[in-house]
């Protein structure tokens, strides 16, 4: 090996810092979610008084919306990679819309729980763990939507071009993470815990 000249590594390539940074953030965020999920699972059935998780309705429509937004954002990523900004704008807009529908669905669910079922974060242990876990996820959806809307704004102003593809993919990573976490939250809250 010693005879190999160092300047041979002409193609000295390192991973993109944006991607590494976002993946690191996702690892850290996953740890936060893990703690909340563990708390939720540990406290299932430990409330000393009602209401119980049986009052929950499974938000199937909501889930379909959020999960399909991962697909639409992926289509948008592909479009911007090839420089098709109009297609990109359409898929991106659809993603934002699906995110908003998801949030609206959550708002509707919470209104029903608070107003009709009388379950608030202070009612009992179930309320505390439910609102904090689902709320933590919803907070991430809100943060993701702010990021996505910013890009949407730039797209409408005609400022997004092919050379921004990598940045857009880094932001999309976050959105994929938000969707993936929902799979866990959904399973724990609406299937295991109910």
């Amino acid at each position, binding site marked *: 090996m010693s005879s190999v000249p160092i300047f041979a590594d002409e193609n000295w390539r390192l991973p993109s810092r944006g991607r*590494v940074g976002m993946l*690191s953030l996702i690892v850290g965020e996953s*740890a936060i979610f893990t703690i909340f999920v563990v708390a939720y699972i540990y406290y299932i059935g430990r409330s000393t008084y009602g209401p119980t998780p049986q009052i929950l309705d499974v938000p199937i429509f909501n889930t379909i919306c959020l999960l399909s937004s991962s697909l639409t954002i992926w289509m948008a990523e592909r479009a911007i990679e090839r420089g098709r900004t109009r297609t990109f704008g359409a898929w991106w807009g659809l993603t934002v819309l699906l995110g908003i529908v998801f949030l609206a669905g959550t708002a509707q669910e919470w209104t029903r729980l608070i107003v009709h079922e009388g379950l608030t*974060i202070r009612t009992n242990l179930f309320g505390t763990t439910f609102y904090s876990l689902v709320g933590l996820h919803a907070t991430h959806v809100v943060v993701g939507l702010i990021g996505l809307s910013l890009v949407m704004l730039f797209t409408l102003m005609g400022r997004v071009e092919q050379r921004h593809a990598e940045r857009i993919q880094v932001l999309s990573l976050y959105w994929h993470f938000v969707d993936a976490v929902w799979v866990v939250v959904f399973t724990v809250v609406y299937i295991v815990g109910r």
Partner: protein
Amino acid sequence: MADQTYPIPGSFDATPSRDAALLEWLHSWVVTVDHKKLGILYVVYAIFFLLVAGAEALVIRIQLAIPNNHFVTPEVYNEMFTMHGTTMVFLVGMPILFGFANYLVPLMIGARDMAFPRLNAFSFWLTAFGGLLLYFSFVGGFGLYGMGSAPDVGWWAYAPLTAKAFSPGHNTDYWALALIVSGFGTLGTAINIIATILSMRCRGMTLFRMPLFAWLMLVVSGLTLITITPLTAAQIMLLIDRYLGGHFFDTQAGGSAVVWMHFFWIFGHPEVYVLVLPAFAIANEIIPVFSRKAVFGYPAMVAASVGIAFVSLTVWAHHMFTVGMTSVSNAFFVLSTMMVGIPTGIKIFNWLATMWGGRIHFATPMLFCTAFVLQFLLAGLTGIMLSVAPWDWQLHNSYFVIAHFHYVLVGAIVFCIFAAIYYWYPKATGRMLSETLGKWHFWLFFIGFHVTFDPMHFVGILGMPRSIYTYEADRGWNSLNMVISIGGMIQGIAVLIFAWNLIVSYLRGKEAGNDPWDAWTLEWATPSPPPAYNFATDPVVRSRRPLWDLKHPNDPDWKYER
């Protein structure tokens, strides 16, 4: 802003007045995104809080020097040990280590700055304001005891003491909020360091040619990502309990206080390794240079560091043997804790093998590192003792435990931090620290350390519990406690000499030149202090010791390294 009274930074003012120049200088520190300036800010901030938390420790030691003492009230005493612990871990340990990482990692890997310079500045200011928020508690809010409302629930803040019913007022909120804020700063820095190391290395700097310092910082940052965040999550739960009436840790409503303990120690134990791995990183740079040998067993060092990081994630409940876990859990945590001894043992043997047969030059940095190896070994041995559950049942929450972890935190980490400051101060300021004052500092601190923490083992075995306000005179602890307090004072004097050395040497120290220690890593190839852009041309490296290759063109390392 027609009536402009402050200077525009970077403006070509022909003769700026003295005040304007000072303002401009201060302004440059506030708006800086330079990794070196931010690194210095981190270190200065941490040294300031080191003095503050050291003073708090001395208040504790004065209170405990004699039995039935009333130097401070019990309430103030609780605030002192809570703030001492919280400050030392979050406002001294983390910032100073990230400060070194900030300053050194880009220089060592041949980069011009961190991966995200603005995120870097943002993280520093989050950390800084987190610390200020914590200390604002002394004057802010309505304190119960006329001492402001400084947190007084212990740095571990066990439930249910932290519930609104038992901790009214705002002290616990200051604790949680300040640590959430600085925790996000820490998370940002960790992300930044990982991205810098993975994406910003200069040509030829493969992962296995990186200095071990950079390797360990990569491991530490990865560990930080999954260590700080559980604490943030648990503190969010605590705030939900306190402000929104939640029941996470409310035992009356089915919540559990033990869950808090688990969450806290899932953070708390890996945190110890987050603090100690950078100390290892420092020793890995200093010991070879002052032994005039390449570090022994580079791949084993890397493997051991990664191993420590992994094992450290599975040991947290050894803090909880007295809680009443099942014997299976106890056995698991006993064994996993003992397993940490294997990779740390590898490291100690590697340092010894590096020194073995070397031409050792005992300058101040090397003195501190040598003492570190000895003390860390002893700390590890008491750690193995405490990892045995039945032994822990006897000594849990006694001064033996205090002695054990101060052997790690002071005997290993603080010693390495001092070593690092003596070693890299010339690079950062262009001037050498005084060796005479340095020797005084080392020997006083070394003696003070052992006078303080060696007898703590004995009072612990004699049954003295931790966190007590005072004790009766007939327990047989009196003279030992007096000795411990005297040791604390000796350490205090040593730290004051150190602070004096920092100031005097900055003004009148010997010129350092680029490479005062004849070292081998890239940071010594730059002028002292390095220019804002670090390297005029991007460096190219062919081995783990690029400066050795430059200085010895007939006998370069890359001929031998695989």
